[in-house]
């Protein structure tokens, strides 16, 4: 079975600083997708960023970027210039075309003013 592991249950960062959230996954597939979702206190899950495994270039969305290491099966999320609104639960997810998403345990991010 495919698994996704987020080894950091909680992280904290000072406002305007940079933080990196870790995610590893286990699969024998070669073509798949990876996602980071954000869940603020409102509970609405928001897609932050996605990466297609066949693309070597790391995805970037404004202050959010990923470090995708396919051989190491690692997919970390870097948040630059952290803002108070970034405080949320972050979930890493994996899936292949035609299948469902498998999620990690989540990392609770606190942003300190």
């Amino acid at each position, binding site marked *: 079975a495919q698994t996704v592991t987020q080894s950091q249950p909680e992280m904290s960062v000072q406002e305007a600083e940079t933080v990196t959230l870790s995610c590893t996954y286990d699969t024998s597939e070669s073509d798949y997708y990876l996602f980071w979702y954000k869940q603020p206190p409102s509970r609405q899950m928001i897609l932050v960023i996605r990466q297609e495994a066949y693309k070597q270039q790391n995805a970037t969305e404004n202050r959010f970027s990923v470090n995708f290491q396919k051989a190491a099966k690692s997919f970390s999320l870097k948040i630059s210039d952290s803002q108070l609104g970034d405080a949320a639960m972050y979930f890493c997810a994996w899936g292949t*075309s*035609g299948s469902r998403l498998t999620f990690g345990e989540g990392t609770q991010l606190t942003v300190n003013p």
Partner: protein
Amino acid sequence: DVKVTQSSRYLVKRTGEKVFLECVQDMDHENMFWYRQDPGLGLRLIYFSYDVKMKEKGDIPEGYSVSREKKERFSLILESASTNQTSMYLCASSLTRGLNYGYTFGSGTRLTVV
């Protein structure tokens, strides 16, 4: 914008009751999913559906069933609610069988079984 609506934000039910959690999406998505979210366990898939009247078991289907009579509606049913089913339930939908754009989620139903 695609919208996924879950009928209740909070729900309190008694042990043994039959509970219906409703989810409706408004953008003609083929795929719909029910996840359960618990602290430290992330999101776990209960059931999913790729088409009307079609359903497949996820990782933790025991104690649950689903119904999809119309494309836009996917219902999760707890036949006889138990306290260990107290949790946050998230519904999601996606446009195609591919995962190019991930899922769109509802805002969740926090169910308490007493």
